[in-house]
């Protein structure tokens, strides 16, 4: 088929008229592919929805990371304090302050062998 300017012009004109009349898609027989079109739209919607969900999830990840970081800070601070108070000399000083009779070992422990 020979393609001429006149034919192209007629095609555009007819298409425009069809658009105005709301018959463009019918003329292309798209009703046969209606389900596919709907499916494509569904996929687009799904992608947008998932993208939003991913953004939210990532925000939650960031928020949780900050919380974990905070907890790690608390943990390291507590660990540090715990180690400090469990120092041999610190325990000794506390016992002394409490006027406890508990002192350093004065002889080795007994080990009972079965």
């Amino acid at each position: 088929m020979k393609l001429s300017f006149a034919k192209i012009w007629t095609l555009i004109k007819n298409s425009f008229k069809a658009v105005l009349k709301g018959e463009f898609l019918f003329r292309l027989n798209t009703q046969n592919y209606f389900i596919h079109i709907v499916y494509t739209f569904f996929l687009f919607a799904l992608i947008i929805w998932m993208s939003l969900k991913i953004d939210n999830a990532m925000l939650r990840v960031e928020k949780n990371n900050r919380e974990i970081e905070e907890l790690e800070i608390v943990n390291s601070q507590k660990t540090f304090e715990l180690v400090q108070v469990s120092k041999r000399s610190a325990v000794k000083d506390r016992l002394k302050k409490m006027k406890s009779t508990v002192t350093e070992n004065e002889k080795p422990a007994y080990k009972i062998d079965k």
Partner: protein
Amino acid sequence: MRKKAVIKTRKKRDRISVILYVLYLVMLIGSTCLIGKLVYLQAWFKPDPRIKAALTPQSTRIVTQPVRGNIYDCKGKLLAMSCPNYILHMDCTVQKSNYEHMKDREKGMRLENEWRAKAMDLSVELAKVFPEKKARDYYKMIINGREKGSKYLAIGTPVDRKTRNRIIEFPLWNEGAYKGGLIIENDNIRVYPYEKLARRTIGFVRSNKSGVSNTHIGLEGHYDKYLHGQEGIEWQRLTDNGKVRDYDSTYCTVVDGQDLYTTLDIDYQEIADKALRKGIENEPDVEGGCLVLMDVKTGAIRAMVNLTRDNGGRGRFEEISNMAIGRKAEPGSVFKTVTLMTLLEDGKISSLDQTIPTNHGKVEGAKIPVDAHIQQYEVQNHTNRISILKGFEMSSNYVFATLALQNYVNEPERFLSYINKYHLNETPDFDLDGWRTPTIPTPQTRYWTNADLAAIAYGYSTQETPLHILMFYNAIANKGVMMKPYIVGEPVKMDAICSEQTAKTLTRALQGVTNEGTAKALKDARSNVAGKTGTSFATFDNGKYQDEHGRRKYLGTFAGFFPAEDPQYSVICSIYSKATTKSFQGGGIPAVAVKSLVDQIYNIDPYGQIRITK
């Protein structure tokens, strides 16, 4: 001919279809406009650059610092860890311009006065937390900052989390950053729960932000590349709800530093530290000292104390330099054990009870000072012979110089080859940088004389570090098998430097020293200790062992192991004195410090446990 009527049939549209058609047209026009607008925006529209910058989501490069690995002792106690600290600054200018430019001038003044009143309350609270300044000083500082437009005024010192939580509730600062002006920056700093204990062995870094570049001290320096970890780099994009990681950009996951498990026992370290301090703290003439405790069977270092006076030798004792590995000196009589081992191993003597003539303490064949102890011995015991064991117990230079000259004067290399066999001329790999290589003169050295051979035999002319000496004594305790000292990793057997029989004989001799000899201070120790004392003098600038005022610089050492019958730990304690007229012998402070250590370890170590069979 009847003219055919031409009837032009028009589609009859019902009302609904008309409405739908109109709606369709409206939507069609609308969508056409939208598409047109989109094309225009994409192709021709040029927004205001400021608006463009404000509305374009920006990706920010975030560098995440790795958490530096912890350092643990052999029982899992934390020796070094990273802990956040908070640095406080204040924007003193908050709300200032708002109050100044308020239309209602009076209201502006009133609000400014209220702000200043709250700043006063804040200053009172600050003075409680940072008592180095008074409340009025803090107030003056804040108000000055407000008047001069200071937006980043440093407040106090870095604080921990608990204090930070208190501080954010202070008046003015509890109103948030925009009204109170508080700026808090988080910095992960390195903390040492045991403070300065084993500081020189563990090392010191301020934070993990950069590698250890200023110094290579301790484990922190030596293992920095493992402890440091790897920085993470990621790009974050701004969404409507906040920043999230931009997975479309490249990123590098942060890798935290690895933990370091050491052989140190921090309880023993504390005991050793106290034992050494107790001995030297009240001695103004002591420059410093070190005490090292090693596990006999593995070579694991359990404690390494290095105390030096700070403030140019006039201040308190601190862990400033690692003398145990970094200070080599003539070891003194602790080296006589090396000579004795050589004589036994080489078959030059068969028994410790073998005797030699006393010769009034004068060594034949070398120019060395007369041994006054031998002359005393001759008088006290009415004899002109002395056993090798007795010579060892009383630490006679004469006995060992004579034995070395009698047996090796024609083949000094043979004697020195034994020293090399004991690895006393080399430095094995170690977990701390700076272990110095010993100096051993050889006949090829300039000015070598027989006196050098004699001097080496009783601990002069050579230079050894305390750790070399300890390594040697540990081998005796370990039935002749030398172990490489280590703080991190696995035990490494070097080789057998002597036979089991020689080790047994030496143990007997060393027990003689603690029972009857120069280390009697250890006689009553809770465990039987076998060891040897050593005293040497450091040389002055004039090349002599004493200065023009007759003062000497002492190195007093005790090296040994315990319990002698089944050795578990080997130990060395060395004391370095300033130039003094006082005497600092190995049998003095070092032996007393070791006794204190042995007594306390005996009470808590499993080897001391009394077994009861049910």
